[in-house]
């Protein structure tokens, strides 16, 4: 099993979700996060006071998938979230040791 963590532009979330549903992903967790990469921040000015905003808002997705689905999921996210401009985000793929479905107590791939 793999845990796929993707940080994307917030306005791409709907498209990514649809792309993931199309490849068979049945659930995911989304968080609103802040961060910076090569995109850096921007400057805001209020009555002459300049503030540099270093951390930009991003959406973070966490998806647990069986090993054989991982490639398709990464591909779906990458193509749906891409604008071609700086700041499109990153996808991390991590090995996943175990999963528990709390309601039934199922474990492993059955619980994904």
């Amino acid at each position, binding site marked *: 099993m793999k845990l796929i963590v993707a940080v994307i532009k917030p306005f791409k979330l709907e498209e990514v979700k649809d792309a993931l549903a199309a490849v068979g992903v049945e659930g995911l967790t989304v968080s609103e996060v802040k961060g910076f990469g090569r995109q850096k921040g921007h400057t805001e000015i*209020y*009555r002459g*006071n300049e*503030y540099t905003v270093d951390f930009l808002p991003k959406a973070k997705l966490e998806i647990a998938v069986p090993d054989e689905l991982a490639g398709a999921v990464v591909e779906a996210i990458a193509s749906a979230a891409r604008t071609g401009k700086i700041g499109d985000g990153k996808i991390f793929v991590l090995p996943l040791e175990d999963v528990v479905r709390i309601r039934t107590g199922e474990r492993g791939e059955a619980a994904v």
Partner: protein
Amino acid sequence: MRITSAYLRPILISLFLGLLCSLGVRGESAAAAPVVPVALAPTVEQRLASLEAYLANTDPTAALKNARGEIPPGLTTPSAGVAGPGHNAWMMVSAALVLFMTLPGLALFYGGLVRAKNVLSIMGWCLGITSVVTVLWWAVGYSLVFGKSFDSAYLGGSEHFFLKGVGGAPNPNYSFWVSHNVFAMFQLMFAIITPAVIVGAVVERMKFSAVLAFTVLWVLLVYCPLAHMVWGANGLMNGLANPAASIKAIDFAGGLVVEMASGWSALVLCIVLGPRLGFGKTPMPPHSLVLCMVGTGLLWVGWYGFNAGSAVAADGIAGNAFMATTIAAAVAAGTWAGLEYYLRGKASVLGFCSGAVAGLVAITPACGFIDATAAVWVGLAGGTLPFFACTKLKGWLRYDDALDVFGVHGVGGTIGMLLTGVFADVAINGNLATHLSASVGRTLWIEQLKGMGVALALAVGGTLAIALVLRATIGLRPTIEAEQEGLDLTDHGEHGYIYDASNI
């Protein structure tokens, strides 16, 4: 039959009147006999002139005066000593509009500009100031400003303490047609908003108790004397109405009393208090320009009560004030945002809001005295100089005037007062001809400068004394922990926004 009765009625009435007159003559001829005084009846001409005074906003008893300029005892008309419905209605609306400027106008304008952890704090200050000043005004404030018993150019009197004698009949010292109680409430709203404007400079770092204590002392020691000097019938600087005024300055709606007094006091208070924790290091951007914009709109609309209402009548002067107010506010808003666009490439919403308020401030002393074109000039000046005061001067001098009260109200009010002296025009406000015809258009601006000097000295001196005394006694600042936590929680035990998943 109908025709006959129409002819008969005047004949009968004149017969009756003739009989009354002959009785009167007989009464006078029998001078020795003590007679019950007969109530004198006004003539139809006198009654009409008295009623016409309502339209002209003049004295309804003027027509009753005899050749010696005295009103015969007992002679009155139904129009004398009563409120004029139109003037009274407008003044009640105006009073409500001026309160609307504070609650919620200023509360939102300021509330949007602070960080989210202090939004309720400034709103609580506006509410607290409204409560405290209202009680103060009832007890002594109104009388100290608009009373006469002290016979002083510097302070009013004690005859209206606890609003004694302030009823529905007009007080002819200030208005022939507006109820005394309506006038007192209209003026109360000015006494509320002035300290509420000041505290914008010290948001996020002053204790609630200290804000209220400062308000009480400041209204008593700075506002009341200054308002009496400028607007009291026998005030020191009331050039418009007091022929004995030593400084013949004019201030239509509060350029001295409200704007300069609050702006300069704010500068002193924020310097005594010191900057916010982390000022210049931690970002402190506004948490909601949406609230700020809503507040700006409410201030602008409320300002019609403030400025046009300061005519204390629903007359042509009020109409001129309404027009000048609109023009100056719109021009100044565009000027401020235009300067931003020119200097930085973007016109900001906060720039439009700041410019509108600065223009409204600058036109305040002038609106009932100047024409539309002069209002454009006042708007240009009101949008330009406060812009540089807020964006440049504050940065150079490094004082933490958090919401730019000095930059907008202090600088804007100062320019407005001076330009009032330059642009005031007898053709716009005929009252200028009563005592000031020699100086209007010539040396009035010098009188304005003298008045500004007195207001500045009183505001700076009074605020410095009050702030130092409070700092040495109850203390001005919250604890460092409270300031970091935010005053909403530490002073009021509430949060402005509760965004909690379990609470939705």
